[in-house]
């Protein structure tokens, strides 16, 4: 009987069964950032123990970084203390720190892949739920809490229960103007925000076969929003082509051996899944969230629902969402006036996202009164864009072009909404207060849809705005 990638990677990393029945799982790659690590490092000091495998531990700073101030000290003394704490912790323990002076700093889930640290057949943990992103490479990658960060630092392992595997096929072909972001928003609205609890999502089918690595990362990134802690795509030639030559990838004979291992780790053709769901790509439209969970989403041409239009179990949350978003039930999502446009985040802050938006943005201008910011997800993405004049296209259109960081996704740095501003955002969460204002309102959508909203000043169908 065949195995899934999940089973193969789990089995090769299982150290032993713990007394409580969970597995002591080896974490091959440990990614660190400044928010969820300080208490863990402090626990190591208290216990007077070292980091077990510093060479398998990589750190960056992303959440608190001001995207409009490069030099320290930062205006926010708490943020300044956090970057200095991480720097000190890494220096003391021998952990590699992609500091801002290295030219390699960025959002952790963008840095890992672009440095070739993220590889197929590995286990990857990080104190951040969007660690599921790295599953795009055929890794078991997931978010952990600070105490588990401590466990991994000390033992390179953690206690974890296995997951069921749901195979999600997206069949057929996406229509023009429909992107990877729309695919995952569609999956989440269909399966629900807790549909994936207890599952790893294995994404496949012709649409995923044809996706680039960056598109696969966008989808895997938001697996956790659907409740699935792990989301992955089987590695293939697209994966190997992306990784070849990257700084932390093997070379020569070791590269050939790695590719052979990576090929073998993909799910077997006769693998057995706990559940299979099929989607037809042709059914997927540009999708926009209208509410306060990533599952409260509609297609661009649909109306926002009324509590009477949803199952009973969702009525209270729908009513709460309508009130917070200040939307009237059964009105179109299209045409809602926005105040802010944010392009960036670990979901859509990669080179291809900026290239695609720049392609259509030429000749257009951000609508008057709209604050539009474009935040490259890493210094690598930033440099690549700038070497090709992509930053200039954004600036000419009226976007602010920033330094790399998590920015407006989550309110831990100066990029925040003010009052009840409505933001068209390429990020991954629209929870109340998420973007830094208690009354702030977030609409999640693809980068192209963010650009369309920025240019018209309202939620628009990008296929109409950029028709030429």
């Amino acid at each position, binding site marked *: 009987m065949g195995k899934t990638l999940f089973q193969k990677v789990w089995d090769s990393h299982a150290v032993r069964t713990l007394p409580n029945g969970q597995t002591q799982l080896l974490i091959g790659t440990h990614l660190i950032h400044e928010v969820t690590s300080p208490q863990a490092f402090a626990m190591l000091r208290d216990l007077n123990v070292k980091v077990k495998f510093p060479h398998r531990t990589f750190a960056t700073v992303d959440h608190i970084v001001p995207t409009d101030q490069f030099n320290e000290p930062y205006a926010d003394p708490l943020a300044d203390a956090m970057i200095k704490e991480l720097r000190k912790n890494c220096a003391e323990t021998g952990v590699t720190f992609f500091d801002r002076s290295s030219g390699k700093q960025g959002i952790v889930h963008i840095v890992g892949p672009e440095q070739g640290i993220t590889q197929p057949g590995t286990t990857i943990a990080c104190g951040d*739920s969007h660690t599921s992103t790295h599953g795009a490479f055929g890794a078991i990658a997931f978010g952990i809490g600070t105490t588990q960060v401590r466990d991994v630092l*000390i033992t390179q392992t953690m*206690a974890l229960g296995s997951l069921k595997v749901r195979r999600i096929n997206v069949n057929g072909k996406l229509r023009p103007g429909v992107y990877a972001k729309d695919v995952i928003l569609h999956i989440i609205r269909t399966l629900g*925000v807790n549909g994936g609890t207890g599952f790893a999502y294995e994404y496949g089918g012709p649409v995923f076969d044809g996706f680039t690595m960056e598109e696969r990362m966008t989808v895997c990134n938001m697996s956790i929003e659907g409740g699935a802690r792990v989301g992955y795509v089987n590695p293939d030639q697209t994966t190997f082509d992306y990784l070849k030559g990257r700084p932390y990838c093997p070379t020569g004979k070791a590269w050939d051996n790695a590719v052979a291992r990576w090929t073998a780790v993909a799910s077997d053709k006769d693998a057995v899944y706990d559940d299979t769901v099929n989607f037809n790509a042709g059914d997927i439209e540009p999708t926009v969230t209208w509410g306060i969970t990533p599952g409260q989403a509609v297609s661009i041409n649909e109306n926002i629902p009324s509590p009477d239009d949803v199952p009973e179990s969702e009525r209270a949350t729908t009513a709460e969402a309508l009130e917070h978003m200040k939307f009237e039930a059964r009105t179109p999502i299209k045409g809602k006036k926005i105040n802010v446009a944010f392009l960036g985040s670990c979901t859509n802050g990669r080179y291809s996202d900026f290239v695609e938006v720049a392609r259509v943005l030429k000749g257009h201008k951000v609508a008057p009164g709209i604050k539009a910011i474009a935040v490259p997800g890493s210094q690598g993405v930033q440099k690549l864009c700038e070497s090709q004049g992509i930053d200039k296209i954004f600036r000419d259109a009226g976007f602010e072009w920033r330094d790399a960081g998590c920015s407006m996704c989550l309110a831990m740095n100066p990029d925040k909404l003010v009052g009840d501003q409505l933001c068209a955002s390429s990020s991954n*969460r629209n929870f109340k207060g998420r973007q830094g204002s208690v009354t702030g309102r977030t609409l999640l959508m693809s980068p192209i849809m963010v650009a369309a909203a920025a240019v018209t000043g309202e939620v628009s169908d990008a296929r109409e705005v950029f028709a030429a």
Partner: protein
Amino acid sequence: MALEKILAVTGTAVPVPGDDLDTDRIIPARYMKCVTFDGLGEFMFYDVRFDEKGNKKAHPLNDDRFKGAKVLISGNNFGCGSSREHAPQAIYRFGIRALIAEGFAEIFFGNSTTLGIPCITVSHADRLELTQLVEADPKLEVTVDVEKQEVRAGNKVYQGVIRESARHGLTTGHWDPIADLLDGLGDVEKTAAKLPYMAQA
């Protein structure tokens, strides 16, 4: 590291109604710019409890009748969103020692269990009934029995579910797995040695 065995938690309860209460709501990100977990208790559900001027909003968490509660009761998908351990840390430091809900998000469940906070899942109907009992009599002692996987309040007994690995950890005093993980250190090297990428720097 000897931890206490957590067989049951008894105390008064506070209902926090709603589904999909996410970790941003449990602890807003602006309170996470810290290098320790000290003081997080006062910020639990901050924007749910206080308005922008710092005035208390009408909410069970501000209701004096539920002051001192050790048990929190909520809806489905509790703790969804971010993996931030700051969320259960804030809950623990607020004074809560057990959680009853219709469902827990996965990462949150693991983080809470690691801190010794039992998370028991009950049915929608039972959650509603329990909430009514507590609202009618806020001084009612509620027991979350980890061993028996049940909730007792007055003369009512509700059957619930606590995942076996969590139940085992809590009742044997191994809810923080570090001691068990350290026991396996000898095997860690062996497993790592079989994986070529572990040698890569």
